[in-house]
């Protein structure tokens, strides 16, 4: 017991590692604030293009989506990180991570938005168009709000996954929470920093898990 406290919950070590961990939390939040909106926007773009129902465009988009869903995000990240320099492209670490997330999350969010757009009955668009709204207006004011509401649980649940995925950035040395915790652990020869990081993730993400759970159960109850 004594030993467990000493190596897992060591107050002295936690105190030393704390500022370091907090800097990691800031970076994790920053990264999330960049990659989640990028993912949402690009996913929406993919879904809206699919919604045009042009045969070849749709086929291409399905291939794109399936391809990047088959790819583990870590593989994508390492491929971009290891490959780009050979193309003579020098992206900063943040850019590399953002690019990998763009490719990965746009396909996941794209699938969700696509399901959402398809869930809105065709009559809605027809009715909106017949009142004189343009195609763009119909999409923006009539279809999208309903589509988004219908897939809200999936959108939030995927956002939770994306935030969890930001830990992958630590593998290429991006100094977010997990990376800082690993470094602190290596420097102090003590497990407290990683245990603390795990607890921080738990505290940050638990409310989101609860929210997803509630929304999912609600949508099942409606059926």
């Amino acid at each position: 017991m004594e030993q467990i406290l000493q190596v897992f919950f060591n107050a002295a070590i936690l105190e030393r590692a704390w500022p370091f961990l907090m800097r990691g939390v800031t970076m994790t939040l920053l990264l999330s604030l960049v990659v989640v909106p990028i993912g949402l926007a690009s996913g929406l773009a993919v879904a809206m293009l699919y919604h045009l129902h042009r045969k070849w465009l749709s086929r291409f988009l399905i291939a794109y989506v399936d391809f990047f869903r088959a790819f583990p995000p870590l593989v994508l990240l390492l491929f971009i990180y290891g490959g780009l320099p050979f193309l003579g492209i020098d992206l900063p670490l943040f850019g590399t991570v953002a690019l990998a997330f763009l490719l990965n999350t746009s396909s996941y969010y794209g699938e969700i938005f696509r399901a959402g757009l398809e869930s809105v009955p065709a009559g809605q668009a027809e009715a909106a168009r017949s009142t004189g709204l343009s195609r763009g207006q119909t999409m923006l004011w009539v279809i999208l709000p309903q589509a988004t509401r219908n897939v809200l649980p999936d959108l939030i649940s995927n956002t939770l996954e994306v935030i969890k995925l930001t830990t992958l950035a630590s593998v290429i040395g991006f100094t977010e929470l997990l990376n800082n915790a690993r470094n602190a652990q290596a420097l102090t020869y003590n497990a407290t920093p990683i245990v603390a990081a795990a607890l921080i993730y738990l505290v940050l993400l638990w409310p989101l898990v609860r929210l997803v759970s509630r929304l999912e159960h609600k949508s099942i109850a409606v059926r």
Partner: protein
Amino acid sequence: MELQRLAFSFFNGDVASRYWLDIVHGMWVTTYLAAAIVATGLAAGLALAMARSFHFRPASFVIVVFADAFRALPPLVVIIVLFFAFPYVDLAMSAFSATWLALSLVLAAFAEEIFWAGILSVPKGQTEAARSTGMSRLQTLVYVILPQAVRLTIAPLTNRMIAITKGTALGSVVAVHEIIYYASSGASEAGNPTPLTLGAAAYVVLFLPVVMFSRWIETRFAWKR
């Protein structure tokens, strides 16, 4: 010229011939690691959901806390805690076991929630009718509730299984000898990213059929009735 350089970097036959056997070996490790995770994760998730359906409060509470925690924790964090923190208390495990255990726990948490949602979706009258014919609680669960519940869980479970088996790539961080481990060590050894291309191709070969299969499953067993 540009194209030639591109081919030399990413599709170098010379480098590929040196490393493709490693990648194939990695594919084998990825496959059986994934199979082990799916087997343990699903079995544990189903067992937990069944335990929860007996509505014994303390047990349900523990199960909900477990499921919440492992749905909130990033899988990479779980792997790293198991692999790097536990040796400090003399609970060292191999990289393979740590990855297997971590991802099984995560899958169990998600599977429990999905099975539980499935169980909840079966109307109460079914339980009451089964119980009134003299079936025990366990018989009711196994022969009446679960067969109806499982149908609804197939699509979300398939998606979750794909997501988590793709997580086997995370094992490379603790040096499990799976695809990406060989691919990135090969790339740095050769000073050429061709092994990475091979690794990426290996993942597409393994997972693209699964993703396409899941697309079919989704339309076949959609949540709507």
